[in-house]
């Protein structure tokens, strides 16, 4: 049965702000977040019968929203490679999670996501942007907790290498020109 305008409007009023906030934290701009929300509701309209049987509509919409955000991040890949202003390393083996209000940290994570595979991106989004536990993240992604740990640790190892290179590049520029890059 197709969704009615009234049903979808009611859902939109109820869920769109939460989805917009979440998408903005991942993608960084209101414009991209608005697009993610529109896409999510288009998917809801398309899969209305399936959607109506979901125990947690927001969890279902989060998954749709995640897919869209992953696609956008993938499309930005070339753009993010050009970023050279990330000068802080992620310190230590224990992961640090960005405050949702901390744009710099969120941006750093976005840059690192550009080169990750989709499963890792999904894990990082749930751990860092959604603040989910490892167990909840593993359940949503459909993998075991040990697998999630491996993916996450590999991401952090790569993050340290990438950010380490950027730190070195920054220091080199600073040494040459006597100013912070």
């Amino acid at each position: 049965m197709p969704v009615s305008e009234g049903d979808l409007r009611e859902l939109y009023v109820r869920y769109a702000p939460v989805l917009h906030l979440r998408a903005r934290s991942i993608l960084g701009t209101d414009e991209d977040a608005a697009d993610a929300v529109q896409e999510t509701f288009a998917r809801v309209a398309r899969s209305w019968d399936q959607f109506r049987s979901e125990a947690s509509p927001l969890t279902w919409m989060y998954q749709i929203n995640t897919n869209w955000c992953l696609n956008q991040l993938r499309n930005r890949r070339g753009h993010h490679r050009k970023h050279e202003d990330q000068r802080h390393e992620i310190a230590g083996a224990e992961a640090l999670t960005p405050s949702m209000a901390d744009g710099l940290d969120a941006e750093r994570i976005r840059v690192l996501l550009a080169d990750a595979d989709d499963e890792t991106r999904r894990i990082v989004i749930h751990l860092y942007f959604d603040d989910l536990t490892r167990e909840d993240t593993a359940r949503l992604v459909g993998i075991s907790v040990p697998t999630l740990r491996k993916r996450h640790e590999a991401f952090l190892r790569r993050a340290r290498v990438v950010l380490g290179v950027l730190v070195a590049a920054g220091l080199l520029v600073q040494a040459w020109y006597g100013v912070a890059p």
Partner: protein
Amino acid sequence: MRALNQGERPSQLELGRRLVGEVEGPMDPDYARRVASVVVEPFDWEAIRARSERLVDPPPPPAPVPWWRRLHVPVLVPAFAAAAAAVVLLQPDAGNRVKGGGADLGFYVLRDGTPLLGDPDLAWPAGERLQLNYTSAGAVTMVLLSVDGVGRVSRWFPAEGSEPVPVVPGGRHVLDASIILDDAPGPEVFVAAFDVESADEVERRVLEVWGRGGLEALLDWDGDDPLVATLVIEKR
């Protein structure tokens, strides 16, 4: 910056669910304030409907496995994948061969010939047909065993002999066989070891690790070695 959420605080998803009334629980005022400050685009029925009509449906799930590729516990019917194998020395430090963060195992449950994504948090009854999938972290051969609740090992790949079977190194792939759960006690722990010398070697190691600490020790091994993957199937 905050440490990763260990369950001591509600996630953003949980807070969202509370805010929209899906579940009950105390609301974080800061989260509620941030949601309230969001300016969403006005609802546009026509735009959303037009967009939904342009969507492309996701690809269909994998095709059902034909009967001759199915495996049964405790008897495994060898599949095509075991045709040729290469003996590769066990890599004590194989990290430089790993692509994408380590091997892992997943599974589908076959219901009426339709594969459904398996949920490792659920318990599955005897007779349930599972189809395992893997990512090999760049490895080219694999041994797959399982251990039941009393430590009894079943060898799946290779079905015969000790030579590891070839696997596809990139991406996630479905094994060419399905497994029907038996009624042996306890969870069935599947252990895949990639780029190892022999199935005998893996079986010895599995028994040694199991004897040292049971399921937890196997999971630790999985966590420590990027070329080892485990999958725990709880049975009921």
